[in-house]
């Protein structure tokens, strides 16, 4: 952005912004055609204007303000006058400087609210260009924008920041984009030059996943093809910039997606005589109704929605994307901030402790391999370790550099992050909103990113011969259940042996291991209590990072459900076999009625599988599960 003549920034009076963000002074005559409180409330569309420095962003904004009659009366003349008096050539870019910043010398005001209007609606420019910290402010603006204008200079073509900004727009999820090929006067308004540009641009934007609504040849300085059609480029028959903007639609909410609600808090105001236990959050996607069965991730706990709560309103029967919600549950389960509520019958998110992500870095200090950061995704907050940088995108060539150990400010990279504990998310390709996260370094948000993929936390450790490699199980309760004679204990011991590599924390709880301290139950009530005690123990061990393999008699579904609720990650493995197989194996005299699990994570027919095959299936399942 060009510097304004010094005298502009030392204007004697403070700028006051009215409801529209336009400056007003109490003695000024009325702003041209802009009544701050127009009788009708129109929607405002937030737009962001990006592009390489000096390609003409400020000029275009100034021109748009002037050409749409959105300036306070006399402003244009005042500035032209000032320029004449200080013998500086007039620049439309000065208008923006003057509006934003009449007092504070040199301070680049970010996210200053600048408005202009067309007969159709009002536009709020969410970030006004400036050199200092541009990217930080652009990201703040773009994340809230419904549309973007990408400006580039016909004389210079695609430059470093053209690429960088386009890539960021794509990552931030701005879908409606118009490209302005500015300074067409410098190439003599040539159609051939423009067509060549348009080809290059389309190819480049396609490579970062963007599809512009229009590519428009403009001469910002003269207003060509901004508000009015260019007389000198009659060959261009496409829409002007304002026509393109007016054709954009308000973005709305992801009402039709699968239900996702990151839990902000579970409220209970017992001290104020209120016994409701309310799970609260803002719905990111989809919809939930009273009576729906919800699942919380990563804990996997389930319950039915008993009521939707609100204050000073009729209790709603459903809540949907964009709305803040609160509901009570029909079953008492323990859930916490950071979990994600979903609906049982819809596509589920992934929970993992390792992930591949694309990140952009804004921090002063670089993002370095081996260092720890705080990752915030939805309402989850977890300490992460940067394991590996796969590649850094070179913004000037868009080529990938693969041998880096740090990502510096304004760079974009693909990397692998390891999380202290599992969190739930979606892959960017599936559901953008719940794939987005920020990285916090030293108390400040220093980067953002989207999860591309979950990676296995199960790293096979290769033994001497490779075949008997021990496996590291992630913290979980692996609960083996099945009638007596289905082989629970054998499979449990097989798994424990395979998982006992160095560093792997595995605990085996079977009838042998617990022995006399938890004597074999005589009644159903005793059995119930025994299962609950062991379930509690298992969940405590899990909480301290152990993979706990449980194989005790647990024929009752209710007791197992109890165990599931205590655990953070519960994997129920149902072993079954044909009656004749069981009859052969079972210890005579044991005839408890067995209630098979309703929805086990895994079911294995041990009548048909060898123990090695059954074990391998469990490991394969676990591996796949940890990448989900």
């Amino acid at each position, binding site marked *: 952005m060009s510097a304004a003549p010094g005298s502009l920034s030392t204007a004697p009076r403070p*700028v006051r912004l009215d409801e529209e963000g336009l400056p007003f002074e109490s003695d000024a005559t009325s702003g041209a055609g802009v*009544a701050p409180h127009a009788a009708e*409330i129109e929607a405002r569309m937030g737009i962001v204007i990006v592009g390489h420095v000096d390609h003409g962003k400020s000029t275009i904004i100034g021109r748009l303000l002037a050409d749409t009659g959105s300036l306070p009366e006399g402003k244009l003349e005042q500035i032209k006058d000032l320029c004449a008096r200080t013998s500086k050539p007039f620049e439309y870019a000065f208008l923006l400087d003057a509006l934003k910043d009449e007092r504070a010398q040199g301070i680049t005001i970010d*996210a200053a609210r600048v408005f202009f209007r067309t007969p159709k609606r009002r536009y709020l420019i969410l970030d006004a260009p400036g050199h200092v910290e541009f990217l930080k402010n652009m990201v*703040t603006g773009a994340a809230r924008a419904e549309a973007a204008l990408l400006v580039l200079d016909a004389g210079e073509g695609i430059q470093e920041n053209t690429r960088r900004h386009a890539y960021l727009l794509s990552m931030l999820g701005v879908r409606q984009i118009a490209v302005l090929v500015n300074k067409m006067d410098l190439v003599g308004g040539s159609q051939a030059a423009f067509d060549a540009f348009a080809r290059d641009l389309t190819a480049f934007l396609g490579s970062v996943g963007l599809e512009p609504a229009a590519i428009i040849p403009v001469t910002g300085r003269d207003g060509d093809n901004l508000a009015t059609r260019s007389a000198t480029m009659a060959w261009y028959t496409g829409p002007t910039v304002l026509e393109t903007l007016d054709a954009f639609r308000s*973005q709305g909410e992801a009402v039709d997606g699968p239900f996702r609600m990151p839990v902000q808090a579970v409220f209970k105001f017992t001290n104020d005589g209120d016994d409701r236990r309310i799970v609260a959050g803002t719905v990111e996607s989809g919809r939930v109704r009273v009576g729906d069965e919800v699942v919380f991730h990563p804990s996997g706990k389930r319950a039915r929605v008993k009521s939707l709560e609100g204050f000073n309103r009729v209790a709603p029967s459903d809540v949907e*994307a964009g709305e803040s919600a609160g509901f009570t549950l029909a079953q008492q389960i323990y859930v916490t901030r950071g979990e994600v509520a979903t609906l049982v019958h819809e596509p589920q998110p992934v929970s993992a402790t390792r992930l591949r992500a694309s990140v952009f870095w804004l921090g002063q200090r670089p993002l370095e391999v081996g260092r720890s950061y705080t990752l915030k995704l939805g309402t989850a907050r977890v300490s992460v370790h940067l394991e590996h940088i796969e590649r850094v995108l070179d913004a000037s060539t868009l080529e990938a550099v693969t041998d880096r150990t740090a990502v510096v400010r304004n760079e974009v990279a693909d990397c692998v992050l390891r999380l202290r504990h599992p969190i739930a998310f979606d892959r960017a390709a599936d559901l953008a909103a719940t794939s987005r996260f920020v990285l916090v370094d030293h108390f400040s948000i220093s980067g953002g990113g989207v999860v591309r993929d979950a990676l296995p936390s199960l790293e096979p450790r290769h033994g001497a011969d490779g075949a008997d490699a021990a496996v590291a199980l992630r913290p979980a309760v692996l609960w083996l259940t099945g009638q007596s004679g289905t082989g629970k204990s054998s499979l449990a011991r097989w798994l424990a042996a395979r998982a006992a590599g160095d560093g792997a924390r595995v605990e085996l709880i079977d009838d042998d291991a617990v022995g006399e301290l938890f004597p074999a139950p005589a009644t159903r009530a005793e059995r119930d209590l025994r299962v609950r005690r062991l379930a509690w123990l298992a969940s405590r061990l899990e909480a301290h990072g152990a993979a706990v393999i449980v194989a005790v008699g647990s024929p009752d579904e209710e007791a197992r459900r109890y165990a599931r609720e205590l655990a953070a990650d519960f994997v129920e493995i149902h072993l079954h076999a044909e009656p004749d197989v069981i009859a052969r194996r079972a210890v005579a005299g044991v005839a408890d009625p067995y209630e098979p699990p309703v929805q086990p994570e895994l079911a294995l027919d041990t009548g048909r599988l060898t123990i090695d095959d059954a074990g391998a299936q469990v490991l394969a399942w676990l591996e796949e599960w940890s990448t989900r």
Partner: protein
Amino acid sequence: MTPTLATQPQPRASRMDHLDRLEHRSVHLLREAYASFPQLAMLWSIGKDSTVLLWLARKAFFGHVPMPLVHIDTSFKIPEMIRYRDRLAAEWRLTVIYGQNEEALAAKQTFPDGNVDRLTCCGLLKTEALRRTLSGEGTRYRFDHTLGRYVVDTNREPYTGVIVGARADEEGSRSKERYFSPRSGENNWNIADQPPEFWNQYATEFAPGTHVRIHPLLDWTELDIWEYIERERIPTVALYYDQGTGERYRSLGCYPCTKAVTSDAKNVQEIIVELKSGRFANIAERSGRAQDKDDGGGLEALRREGYM
């Protein structure tokens, strides 16, 4: 490294109207603040904005207000404001805390006493009083619901999260705020270097000795505020309405420095009609506040030092 957005569910217009949208966003911000700051307070100036904020807290927390409401009493507030404050405190069972600059008041270092100019007075009775009340250096008085009066509060922990009813459209310097805006221990605000804010993630971490200002009303306009008051039937101080004198207050402050505007709007609906008519189109909302006029960059300078 191609972002794939093609398979996303396409967003579409939901059933929310303009006020619904504002409300849900503010509720979200309030809950984030509550979850992030153990020492959280909300400033309550008694004016329309911070009263809407208080109402939104009741929305966010299902009828409860789980954080203390801090009021800075300059001792020159219009008496009706204080009566209204204490009435709502009792009715809604609010934890109300007030603080003041007792030294400056005792020494009569005030504009109404004729000893300092308006801006210095604001600096002492508001900025400094607020700083000391938030940090715990100054005495905090808490409304005791059993006794029905104010007692000295024993909690002197500094508040690390402070919820404020600032709106971006109110005044130039406010348009630069973030929803969560870190402040140094001395209340200083670094306008040029603000944290990025995107994807509903905010500056909830803070270095020791610093605190964070939270602005849930940033996107609201004066008209939105009144329309919401109307929709929700939020009780407001009668000073906002013409009670037969042909004047009303558009913005409330201390009586020596706040002037009424000429208006015959007698209730919320009439204020909305008046605002929509564009009558005040070129008159700043705070133009009745004399301290804003005293010097060029006055309010911004005060804000940098922590004045609301």
